[in-house]
């Protein structure tokens, strides 16, 4: 149950879901993961730490570089849990938040 809570918390943020989506295409280096996001590298580090704590990613040293890859097994826990309305409202509120973020960007 504790693990499920960690996983749910890890996937509750749109940035972390986007990172999971990116890593589903294969392992990536830290800067490659951070590149599409308009946030401080520090914030990405925190997101990755949360994903790591939930057991959803792992780091692997290859020569001088560290690659981060997805460990999707933990996501399976959620499959039995997520309610249809959880999905519905998450999508709606992502859109709603995105609308205001876009508005904020166009003001700058």
């Amino acid at each position, binding site marked *: 149950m504790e693990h499920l809570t960690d996983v749910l918390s890890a996937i509750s943020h749109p940035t972390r879901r986007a990172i*999971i989506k990116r890593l589903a295409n294969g392992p990536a280096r830290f800067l490659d993961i951070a590149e599409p996001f308009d946030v401080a590298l520090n914030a990405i580090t925190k997101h990755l730490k949360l994903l790591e704590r939930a057991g959803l990613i792992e780091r692997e040293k290859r020569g001088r570089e560290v690659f981060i890859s997805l460990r999707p097994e933990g*996501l399976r826990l959620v499959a039995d849990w997520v309610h*249809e309305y959880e999905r519905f409202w998450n999508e*709606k509120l992502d859109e709603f938040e995105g609308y*205001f973020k876009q508005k904020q960007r166009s003001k700058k």
Partner: protein
Amino acid sequence: MMSNTKTIEVTVERTIPTSPGEAFDAWLNPKVPGTPWNMAEKLLLNPTVDGFFFWAIKGTPHYGRFTAVDRPGRIQHTWMSPNTSGLESTVTVTFRGKGKDTLMTLVHAGLPDTDGGRSHEKGWNFFLDGFQSQLAKSGAV
């Protein structure tokens, strides 16, 4: 009539980069993306206490009655659709100032805990869209 159906509650939270008043007004504006009323094929919306709403999307009707409209802090209404299996569920949305932003919390309570509601496929799609096949390859699904 009392129902023996087991119910659950869904809570979703977001930080919205605007004031609670603006977020509140936007949530009741059908033109704003992400509101339940946006993209409705047919919409009737009267956001006052005891006012009703009806909206339909892809032929699925949704009905409800507003029970609280307290600008800028709280909106509450009932919610019935084929997905609530005849139960009158309740949606409560609160807007609280968080610095320059607004902490928006949506609680959908009284939802029937049915197999349909906990659809595996839909649950997966919520966060796995686009990479389910990769997961299958890795043996996780």
